[in-house]
């Protein structure tokens, strides 16, 4: 019935929020970073939709920078999450070093393609 779905949705959201509050702070930082990157990408896409894709390489470069760094951050989050049995033996510093290195390489390529 309509009322139960509305109440169910609210209940679902409440439970999600409380579960999320329990995540460790470093993972929350990473989630925030991902959100920042994706929203920047969205703004760039809206801009391109408005003015046309003339320097297409610049558009791609900007969007892929955001998307790439978001993907790398997600990979970092997977590696740092303690519930993830696969990466139990991986030192978090090592994961972070990988994240930094990959980002630097990504941004070199992006800067080259920016034009």
């Amino acid at each position: 019935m309509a009322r139960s779905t509305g109440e169910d949705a609210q209940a679902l959201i409440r439970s999600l929020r409380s579960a999320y509050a329990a995540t460790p702070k470093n993972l929350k930082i990473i989630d925030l970073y991902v959100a920042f990157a994706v929203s920047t990408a969205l703004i760039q896409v809206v801009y391109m939709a408005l003015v046309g894709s003339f320097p297409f390489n610049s558009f791609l470069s900007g969007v892929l920078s955001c998307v790439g760094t978001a993907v790398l951050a997600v990979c970092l989050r997977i590696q740092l999450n303690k519930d993830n049995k696969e990466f139990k033996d991986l030192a978090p510093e090592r994961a972070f070093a990988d994240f930094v290195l990959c980002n630097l390489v990504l941004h070199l390529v992006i800067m080259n393609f920016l034009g």
Partner: protein
Amino acid sequence: MADRRSMPVSLLAIIATLSIGNVVAASSVVHPVSDPHRSAAVELFTSAGRSLSLEETYEALRTFEVLGIGKAELRSDGCSSVLDVLKLASSSPKELYYALKVNQLSKCSSERAVFEVAASRLKAALSDVSSLLDYHYSVGGLVLIKDLSPDVDVALTDAKGTFQSIKALSQSDGRWRYGSNNPESSTYAAGVALDTLAGIVKLEDSEIGSSMISAVSNDIKKLFDSIEKYDDGTFYFDEKVVESLEYRGPLATSSVVVVGLSSFASATSEKIDIPGEVFSGLAKFFLAIGVPGDSKDLFYQINALACLEDNRVSIPLILSLPATVLSLSKKDQLKVRVTTVLGANSPPLKLKLRQALKSDSADISVIDSQELKHDSSGGFYYLDVLPDSIDVGKYKFVFQILLEDPEHKKSYATGGRIHVPIYVSGVVIVENAVISVLDSDLGTVDTQKKLDLDKQNDISLSANHLQKLRLSFQLSTPRGLAYTPHQAFLRLKHETKVEHIFVVGNSGKQFELVLDFLRLVEKFYYLSGKYELELAVGDSVMENSFLWPLGYIELDMPEAPEKAPRPPPVAADPHSRFEVKAEIQHIFRAPEKRPPEALSLAFLGLSFLPFIGFLGGLLRLGVNLKNFPSSPVPATFAFLFQVGIGAVLGLYMLFWLKLDLFTTLKVLGLLGTFLLLVGHRILSHLAATSAKMKSA
């Protein structure tokens, strides 16, 4: 069977054709030496404006001697300088040689004492000689002394040795070198060498064995193998290397070789195996120059022709025509002269006109072979009347000279079959010229006017665009055959000077042009009005080519529709098409539309918003720097790590702004190594610290 039997027959035919020898198609007309040469000689040799050197005096005297001009034309005959040179003890062999040559022609002196001095000087020079030219002057001088004063002792000390040292300079291709230390071989030098060797034989023929002479004959044969030729049968000599400093040109080279060959042939009784066609070709080469404009060229030409005139091997006969354009209307006769190269009479011979080939059907002769009659008083051969089958047009007449005496056949060169281009012109008969206006569909005649194409006409016609204009006439040659002239045009010129030209086509004798105005309305740009008519019919062999105005035609064209092409503006000045044209502005690819700057800046600001949001979110989460190492060494490393990352990002900014990839990569290599080291230190330190905390 049939093939086997026919093969020897055809082979025999081929051999027979080859043995006739002179199947070369020679097709240009040259003229023997004549009065223009004489007047040119006088002009060239006396216009120097300065006293001539001995060499130039000799050249002038020799040319005058051959052409039969009196020596008086040459103001001084150089005798004073001749005697000076002959008496002077320090004269070089070259000066003595030319002095003796001039002396021979102007007979300055015949004192024995003078010649003895000169002879001893020349003999001394021979023992100390180094180059071919020195040999030439010394030996030549001694030969001249022997001719002029037979009792002077001109015996060579070592004739055989001298002969062999000259022969040693010969090359395998028949050319000669100028000296033993000069590696270049030259055809000119070959001519000089042959002359010199002939001179040695003249001086001491007993000492020179026949084997040595036949060796030189072989060289001559090899030299003539390298002769060059043009397609029309002209032969000439030229050097292989034309960039050498001593290059003298084909005229001088051919002339010297001819002189050398003829003097060698006359000095020895050796059989020189060179075909007659080579001599005819050489004669053609010298005569085809016409009258040279330079005194030295004239000397080379005349001297060579004089040697060809009475050489022992083969004397060329020249066929020349005073006129190659024959008019049928004036009933011109075909006249041909056969002479030697210097214009002297030929031995008794028969001249046959073998073929007359029309220019458009070059294989079929329009006449049978016939003999030309000889006019002994004028010295030329002629045909009374041109055969009936010769009509107006361009022909190639093929002549052949047949010598009557078999002895003459051996000593004269007839040049084989000689092709001569002949133009036969005549009056082309124009008749039945009619111009008419026809109604287009039915073809009925609206108006018809007769034209008289011997003069200008002044007819006036009128037509509208539904009608046709028809012009017709007949052309025939004097012999009554059909004739197509080179040009047959009808021109219509409007009052506004716009003109149109049409070609009048023909089938056989009938020429006809039909202008269908219905189809031509657009071509005429819908212009109505008076059009002048002009008819042009012409050809190079048509004696009555004409361009007649015929009159006017009043054309009534419909109104021009909107999109009709306008007639091209006829410029007042016909040369205006060559004026400067308007400058063309080039349009390159249009630049892309860019968004307004305000919008771009707005979005720039907008894209910073998520970053601010990120920072705000971080603050809300309560990030702190508690884990930053407190002890100094790790702290510095941590600080350097952050600085390193910042530096790399700064490098990327610079890369985008102004650096190129290679510089960036170089710097990145350095920064990256630094960052790696620092990062490794700090991160391993942090890892160790957290492991301690966990275990603790």
